[in-house]
Every structure is written in C-alpha cells, then in structure tokens.
C-alpha cells in the first residue's frame, strides 16, 4: 500500500478543485470546488498519517473538517445575503469593489 497513488489522486482532485473555482460562475458551485480542494488535502493528510505512523495527520484532517464546516456556514450566509440583495448568485456580479 505505497503512498504515491494516494498523493497523486489528492493532487489531481486539488487541481480540479482549483480549475473549478476559477471557471465556474455560480457562487455555490465555486464553494463546492473549494470543499473538494479541502477534501483532497484531507486525503493527503490521512495518507501521510499512515505513512509516518502517528495520528497527527488524522487529527489535522479532523481540524480541517471543523474549519471547513465553519467556513461553509459563513460562506453560504454571505451568498444568501448577496442573493437576497442582488437576486443573482453569480460571482461576477458582485464586482463593485474595483478601480
């Protein structure tokens, strides 16, 4: 059970998450891609935890999940308020803060 395939998978998922964040315009989908990136990193953490033989990796993954939860809660609340005031969930619409 060598480590490399897991890490490669994690890298691929992370990259897909990145490209998803860049290309998708619906705020919620962008958010999902962010979650995907977080999960990819969790996978790497768990894999390394097993490779190094101590549980710190898993605890780190656990904390990542906690933070992800907090982030999602606040993120979605923001998206809700933007949607309520702007009637659109597209990321490009909220672009007033510019030159």
């Amino acid at each position, binding site marked *: 059970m060598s480590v490399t395939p897991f890490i490669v998978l994690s890298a691929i998922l992370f990259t897909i998450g990145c490209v998803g964040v860049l290309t998708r315009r619906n705020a919620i989908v962008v958010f999902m891609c962010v979650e995907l990136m977080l999960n990819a990193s969790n996978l790497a953490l768990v894999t390394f935890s097993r490779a190094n033989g101590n549980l710190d990796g898993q605890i780190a993954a656990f904390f990542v999940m906690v933070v992800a939860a907090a982030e999602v809660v606040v993120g979605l609340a923001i998206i809700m308020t933007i949607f309520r005031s702007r009637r659109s969930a597209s990321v490009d619409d909220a672009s*007033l803060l510019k030159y």
Partner: protein
Amino acid sequence: MHVTAVQTDGVFSILWLVIALPALGALVLLAGGKRTDKWGHWLGVATVAASFVLSLILFFALLGKDEGERQYTQHLWNWFSAGSYSVNIDLLYDPLSAVFLLLITGVGALIHVYSVGYMEHDERRRRFFGYLNLFVASMLVLVLAADYVGVFLGWEGVGLASYLLIGFWQHKPSAAAAAKKAFVINRVGDIGLSLGASLIFVTFGSTSFAVVSAHADKASGATLTAIGLLLLLAACGKSAQFPLQTWLLDAMEGPTPVSALIHAATMVTAGVYLIVRSNFIFSLTEDARTGVIIVGTITLLMGAVIGCAKDDIKKALAGSTMSQIGYMVLAAGLGPAGYAFAIFHLLTHGFFKANMFLGAGSVMHGMDDDVNMRHYGALRKAMPITFATFGIGYLAILGVPPFAGFWSKDKIIETAFGDNFLVGMCALIGAGVTAFYMTRLMLLTFGTTKRWEKGVHPHESPKVMTYPLIALAVLSAGGGLLLAGDWIVDWLTPVVGEHEEHHLAVGAVGMSLIALAVVAAGVAVAWFLVGKRPVPKEAPSKVSVFTRAARADLYGDAFNDEVIIKPGVVGIRGLATVDRSVVDGLVEGLAVALTAISATFRRVQNGLVRSYALTLLGGAALVLLTLLAVNFG
C-alpha cells in the same frame, strides 16, 4: 622701481585723515537725511577742501625729504587673511600718489564749489554732494592703497560713485541706462583686476606692492605678460580705452560737474595710474607694453574722430577726453621713458579738461540746459568770463606753447617718435585732429552767428561758478611750469625708475615746430569748414560715410549690441525655456510618468473575484516551479 616704504611718522601720520574726511562727509550727508539739507553742500565742500589742505601739507613735507626715502606706508588694519595670504589695508604715500592727491582734492574742491552753484535748484543737492564726497574718498583709497586688493576696493568704490552720479537724475530712463552700462562695462574691466590680483598672489604669495615689486624680476616672462595684459584690461574698463570705451559717451547723461570731476579729471585716469603704479611689472615685459601702446593709439584716434562729429558739446568733450587718455596710455606704454610724461599730461589734462567741462556746464546753465552746439553761436559777448576761461583751456589742449598742453603733449609725441615712427605719426595726426574738433567746438559755441532758440537769452553764470573756472584757467595756463627743469621727471623717478634722455634725429625744438605746424593746419581746416559757412540748425543728413560712422561712435555700441547683447538676450530666453522644459520638465515629467504607470496598474483591480483567484493560482504555480527549479535544478 622697488617699493621699500618706511612706517609713517610725524606729519605723515595724518595720511589716513585725507581719506577719512570725505568719507565722513559722505556718511553724514547720505545718512543724515532731510536735516542736513540746508548746510549739507557746504559740508561737502569743506571736507574736500580740508583734505586738499592736508594733501598740500603732506606734499610739502614729502618735498622736504631727499630723493631716497620719499616712500611712506601707514598700516591701518588687517583686512582679511586666509592661510598664507593676508591682505592689509595699508596706505602708501610716495611722489606718484602725492601728485594724484593734489589733483583729486584740488580739482575736486573747485568742482564742489562750482556744483554748489550748478545744482542750486535741484532738490536732491545734499545727496549729490554725498555721492561726490563718496567718490573723492574712494578715489583717494584707490591712489593711496598699498595693495592690489586695496586698489580694487577703491576701484569699485569709484565705479559705484560714478554709477550713482551718472544716474543721479534717475527719472530720466536714458540716465539710468547709461549708469547701468557704465557700471557693467567697468565690471568687465574689473575681471582683469581680480584675475590679475589672483595671478599675482599665485606667483608672489602676496598682492602688496612691496612684495610684488621686490620679486617682480624673478617671475617668468609669460606670467608677467599675463599680469600686464590683465591689468591693461582693468585699465581699459575704467579709463574707457579701446575695447570697453562705449560707456564714456553715454556717461555724459550725468550732471556736468560729474562729467568734469569723474569723466575728465580723476576716475578715467585711474587706469593710467594702475599702469604707472605697476611699472615694476610693465617695465619687465615688452609684449604687455606693446599691448598698451596699441590700445592707447587706437583709442587716441577713435576719440578724436568721434569728437569731430558730435553736436552735443559734452559728448564732443567726452570724445576728446577719450583721445587724451589714449595719449596718456600710449605714454605709459612707452615704458620708463613715458611714465613721467603720462602723469604730467594727466595733470595738465585734468586742469584744462575740467576747466572746459565746467565751461560747457556754465554755457548750458546759460542756455537753460540745451547741449546742442548748433543752437549756440556768438556767445562770447553774452558770457565773457566763460569764453575767456574756455579759450585758455582750448589753447592748452591744442598745445599752443606757453600753455600746459604744449609741454605735456609734445613730450609724449617726442617719446612716441623715439620708440617707433608709426606710433609717433599717429600721435601727430591725433594732435591735428584734436586741433580740428576743438576749433570746431569753439567756433560753433562762441564764434559764428547767433542761432539761439526762441526765448533763450544766455547770461553769465553766478560768481560761485565762475571763480572755479578762473582758478582752473590759471592752472591750465601755468601747468607747464611743472616741467620747468624736468622737475616732474625727477619728482617721479623714485617711483618709476631712472631713464636716460635719448635724442631724436630732428631734435626737441624741431619736433615741437612740426607739431605746431600740424595743429595750425587743423585749426585752418576747421576755420574753413565751420567758420566761413553758415551753420545749419539741424545736423545735415547727407554726409560722408566717415561722419556717419563718427556720429555712431565708430559703431562701438552697435558692435556691442550685435555681438554681445542681442545674442545674450536670445541665449538667456532660450536658456529660460530650457530650464523650464528640460530641467524642470524632467522633474515634473517624472511625476507625470509615475502617475501614468500607476494608472495602468490600477486596471488589474477589476473587481472580479475569479481573476484574483487566477493571479493567486498563477502565483502559487510560479512559487512551486521556482522551488522545484531551485531544489532539483
């Protein structure tokens, strides 16, 4: 000759008072303000007269001393010192400065008395006398200073006084412009003096006459020539010699006593004084002396030619002054032989030229300040005393035997022939032309028919003006006595050094006869051209090219304007635009460029979160690549 002066003692210690009195007078009159108006002018006259008396005392005391130790120095205070170079305010009293002292204070006193009358109804008379006293004080500093920088102090002081006096009637724009022109051209001359002083310091380690005269022979020929030429440049500036002569004619804008004192008797001769005082340098360099001779000759002829064509009586006299100083510079240039005669001619010229200028002043006073000779005519009956004194001056300048001019000018022509024939001939021709324009002036003013303007009825000037005229007439008549038994030459030998008399092919008496013949010819020509024919009221326009040139001062001013002033103005205006656009432009431009660059970079902030994410990812990729490159490269 070496300047080995001994500390003043006894009567000579009053030397500094000669300067202090007029300086004090100037201070009181200028700072005094309205309160001194009533008696101000008499204070002015008193101070100069007092210092004249002192100079007489000093003169007779010096006369008492025997030949050897007739040089006294008085140390006042150390002016400034820097490293090894220290400059003292010392006074040097020797035969040369004694003679100058008498001339300045004597003629000065007479002119002060004259100007009491002349400036009678000028509300700023007090200030006029203040400036005159300031002038006399600075001139005395110039002739008594024992150090080139001391001379420079007097030199510029005199320049300032001439600026103030030429531009005395400041409300006349022409007077102000003339004053500025005089000062600036004098300043150009001063370049010569300051550079000369610097070169002297570099060569001799000090600028005091004593040190320089002691070591003059050790310096290299080239340095001495350079110093000589620089001093010549200074002399040209101050004495209105050839390259820097344009300001003298404009200086006639000032009141007539000013022209008499400054632009005839004293200041313009400062250049000659400087050359004669630096004889220990000039006698060692042949080339510098030839330069002086050339400049003297050219100015001699130029002045004469200009004098012929001028209708303004003061400008004609100014032209003649320029040519007479040309004579003196020529004489000074002839080396040890000529120094004494230059000073002798300077003295006699001081008497008769001041006399004639004051005469012209009294004529103008009578003709209510009209200077154009074409409006004069037949004034001999209206102003007998002025006519008489002016006549004596006229005979003196011509060089008619008993009068002063004959003795001094002939000597110069004689020595000129001794030195080189061409120069002698120029001097001779100059004498002839002088005769022509002086006779023309006399005829136009006193002879020929009455051409007075309407409502002008000339009258004799008051006594306070005619007495100085008479005094000066006596001096210009008896001036020749100074040469009795070569007294002046022996008197000046301790200063200018020994000179053996060398004989001409044709002998002294023959020389004088030739000169007299040339003068007679000049008078005759003037008589036929001006005396016989009716004098038109306005200057005729169709005239020969020479007269037109002479009227334009031989294009001296035109040359300065074309070559220096016009390109200068254009250059400065160009420089101003360069300064604004290039130098300032660079600075302002830098600011504009920065704002432009920042404007382009601002566009990156387009508010779209996804493009920010893109730059984020790009950055991360870059970091990763560099890490890989660094670790695995």
